[in-house]
């Protein structure tokens, strides 16, 4: 438990991604089995202990600590696990501190009524840091700023493998991952899995840069729309069905209607959207991205959400058909297989993303420029002879996003960044003008941007913020409304969560208009006119 607690503490405070990777790889190298496997499961949110709830922890503390002292302490600390870990008055029992593996295995085997006694004994045997790690572990959600993907990346680094290899194996394995570690350490073979519904790492596209098209032969490429949803993989093999996000996280729990529709034997690549198929003319009506956002990052879903925002998948590719891995086939052959398969199978809640015919690049540029639907993010270009490979090779696939929308806004607030940027004001909240109801104008915040500028520009922005501060709220400064930023964004939607009633997608600083007076910045009405629903 000591090594795991040190890892958790290290991760909590480590601001940099590389630092976190180093800490995790170091832990995997040093901790024994099965501890490291359980730690990996905890980091990838693969552990849960239904009998160990926050209420139980609170009740244990209440038996030992005065309620008023506990309440003041909790109020100050703000986190239950941390409060209990710090306040716990130990009664040394002489019992040795438990190993992580022992904690997990005994909790999994325990009957519900035995759980409080087990936890109490461990709290007595451990120090404050280890108690914190224990309580975070068993109540779920470590919150150490590590995604499952980052943990797998650390694992790949530790074993000298590609993260894609780990992802492909991942869903066929179970904690504490002994065979996986043995393989990564070179004293065991690649773990075999009978479960075929595992994640196949996605093939990604590189952005099309200025001038890229000049060197490309239009006849060698196919074009299709890039839909504004989230990229998913549908794996239905041998009776198992899984819906994966682009990083290999399983998200089927939040989209049961898609999982229900997966009554086939195939692995498919597509875009998850919110859509209503039953519109006039038979067209599928795609809802704006913010409707999909309502359904993301949830473990479960309500009947109302299923009714209001039904999910849909628009299919791009087929990777496995009836147990045959066809990723090595060229795109054109896979596309033919996909169309034939779709024609035979006709799965519900899915359709094919159509190919966009074109003769030359200028025709395609016109098609791209003419696309007004909000659900379209741009175009994808895929070489007809490209096999499906993991990662982001440059050349076979390009994404050609629609030109961004632009707006001149006024800087209102600036906040300090994190990590390397912690001494800089680098997160900028900006506003647009609207009538204040008294015959004048006022600024209303419309978005926040924290990239799009160079280091040099950041230095200049930082100085500007410090010299134009009118008020401070902790790490945030309000500045006098004088600086105009030209922000770029992909689209804009109505939002009830924002005071302005609108929310931008991917806003970033496009140019800093040192020259432009704030009074000439854009109005909220201009932004509202850009909404296409």
């Amino acid at each position, binding site marked *: 438990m000591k090594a795991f607690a040190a890892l958790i503490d290290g991760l909590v405070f480590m601001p940099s991604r590389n630092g976190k990777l180093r800490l995790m790889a170091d832990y995997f190298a040093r901790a024994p089995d099965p501890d490291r496997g359980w730690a990996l499961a905890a980091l990838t949110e693969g552990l849960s202990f239904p009998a160990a709830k926050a209420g139980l922890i609170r009740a244990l503390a209440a038996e030992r600590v005065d309620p*008023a*002292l506990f309440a003041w302490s909790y109020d*100050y600390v703000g986190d239950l696990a941390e409060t209990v870990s710090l306040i716990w008055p130990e009664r040394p029992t002489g019992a040795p501190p438990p190993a992580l593996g022992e904690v997990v295995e005994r909790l999994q085997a325990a009957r519900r009524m035995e759980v409080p006694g087990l936890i109490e004994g461990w709290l007595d045997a451990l120090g*404050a840091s280890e108690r914190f790690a224990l309580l975070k572990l068993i109540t779920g959600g470590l919150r150490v700023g590590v995604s499952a993907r980052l943990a797998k990346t650390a694992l790949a680094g530790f074993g000298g493998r590609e993260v894609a290899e780990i992802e492909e194996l991942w869903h066929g394995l179970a904690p504490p991952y002994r065979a996986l570690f043995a393989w990564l350490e070179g004293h065991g073979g690649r773990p075999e899995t009978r479960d075929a519904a595992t994640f196949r790492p996605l093939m990604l596209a590189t952005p099309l840069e200025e001038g890229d098209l000049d060197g490309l032969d239009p006849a060698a490429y196919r074009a299709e729309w890039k839909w504004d949803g989230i990229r998913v993989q549908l794996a239905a093999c041998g009776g198992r069905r899984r819906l994966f996000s682009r990083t290999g996280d399983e998200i089927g729990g939040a989209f049961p209607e898609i999982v229900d529709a997966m009554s086939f034997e195939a692995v498919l690549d597509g875009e998850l959207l919110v859509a209503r198929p039953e519109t006039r003319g038979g067209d599928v009506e795609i809802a704006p991205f913010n409707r999909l956002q309502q359904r993301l990052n949830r473990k479960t879903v309500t009947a109302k959400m299923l009714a209001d925002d039904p999910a849909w998948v628009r299919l791009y590719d087929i990777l496995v058909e009836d147990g045959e891995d066809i990723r090595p086939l060229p795109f054109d052959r896979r596309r033919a297989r996909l169309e034939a398969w779709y024609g035979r199978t006709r799965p519900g809640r899915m359709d094919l993303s159509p190919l966009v015919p074109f003769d030359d690049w200028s025709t395609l540029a016109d098609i791209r420029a003419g696309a007004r639907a909000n659900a379209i993010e741009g175009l994808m270009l895929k070489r007809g002879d490209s096999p499906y490979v993991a990662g982001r090779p440059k050349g076979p696939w390009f994404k050609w996003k629609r030109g961004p929308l632009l707006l001149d806004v006024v800087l209102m607030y600036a906040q300090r960044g994190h990590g390397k940027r912690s001494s800089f004001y680098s997160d900028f909240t900006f506003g647009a003008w609207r009538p204040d109801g008294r015959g004048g104008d006022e600024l209303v915040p419309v978005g926040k941007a924290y990239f799009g500028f160079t280091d040099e520009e950041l230095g200049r922005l930082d100085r500007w913020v410090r010299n134009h501060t009118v008020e401070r709220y902790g790490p945030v400064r309000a500045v006098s409304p004088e600086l105009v930023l030209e922000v770029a964004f992909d689209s804009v939607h109505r939002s009830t969560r924002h005071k302005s009633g609108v929310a931008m997608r991917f806003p970033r600083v496009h140019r800093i208009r040192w020259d432009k007076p704030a009074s000439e910045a854009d109005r909220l009405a201009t932004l509202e006119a850009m909404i296409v629903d």
Partner: protein
Amino acid sequence: MTAAPKPESWVRVLPEGLYVDPGGFFIDPPRAVDRAVISHGHADHARPHHGHVLATPETLAIMRQRYGANAGAAQQALACGETLRVGAVDVRLVPAGHVLGSAQVVLDYDGSRVVVSGDYKRSPDPTCAPFEPVPCDVFVTEATFGLPVFRHPPVAAELDKLLRSLALFPERAHVVGVYALGKCQRLIALLREAGHDRPIYLHGALKGLCDLYERQGVALGPLEPATVAGGGREAREKFRGAVVLAPPSAIADRWSRRLPDPVVAAASGWMRVRQRARQRGVELPMVISDHADWDELIATIEETGAPEIWVTHGREEALVLQAGKLGRRARALALVGREEEDDAG
């Protein structure tokens, strides 16, 4: 023989601060007064412009360093252990273990004894004399860390975090946020005890008090200014793998940009609470405090044997409650001017 006077009849809270009636002086008043007894040199206890100041010689030296001509029109030194009659009160200063020169103020009046702790700690500190408990009728205690979640771990283990990080990241500067008086010098002394003999680099705001400590006989080893004269790349190379000390406000601000890829550390009792450390952008928190933690507060209350406990500043309500449960009459003295000072933790 008549009964001794009730403590609250001769030590009272006035708008200017805690007042000792029969002596005609205030203890650590937050604003300028005619006569003041000062427990130690931190700015929330030692204010400038008093008419007459009584304190330990070290505290007077610290006040002169900080306030120059405004350190007090008349200054009178009283060494720890000696007794001075002021008005009708015997005043004695007893080490508090907080910072160099810090003292408890022991007041005897007509058979009644009140001890005002000032700030104190019980864990060892190579830069100042250790706290001595004094039996008394009323113990006036601080409560900076007066919640049972504040339990400072052993200092050696906390210091070890810094030493291990220096070994792990020899290419990075380690900038540690420390309060200028006390924490700075204690951390240096602890590093020296642990065998760290490289030069330690100091933010300009820390130099004066380090010099003063050395003049007072506290050896701190090689110290150098954390300046980058000439500003070139080579000027920064010296910081790699070195310990750089700066006030907490500077560690995540513009000043720290001169350091190569710094590990941001801080040494403070507040570092016990993770969220608090994270808010301050600290990636290497060390729980090293110059204040008593919860267990030390309780132990000290018991050791003084005082039947009555007054709590001056910090998280009074929890300590008052706990002292009550220990059979003490306890109350909070609503003193103004003692803001929660994170940096002093």
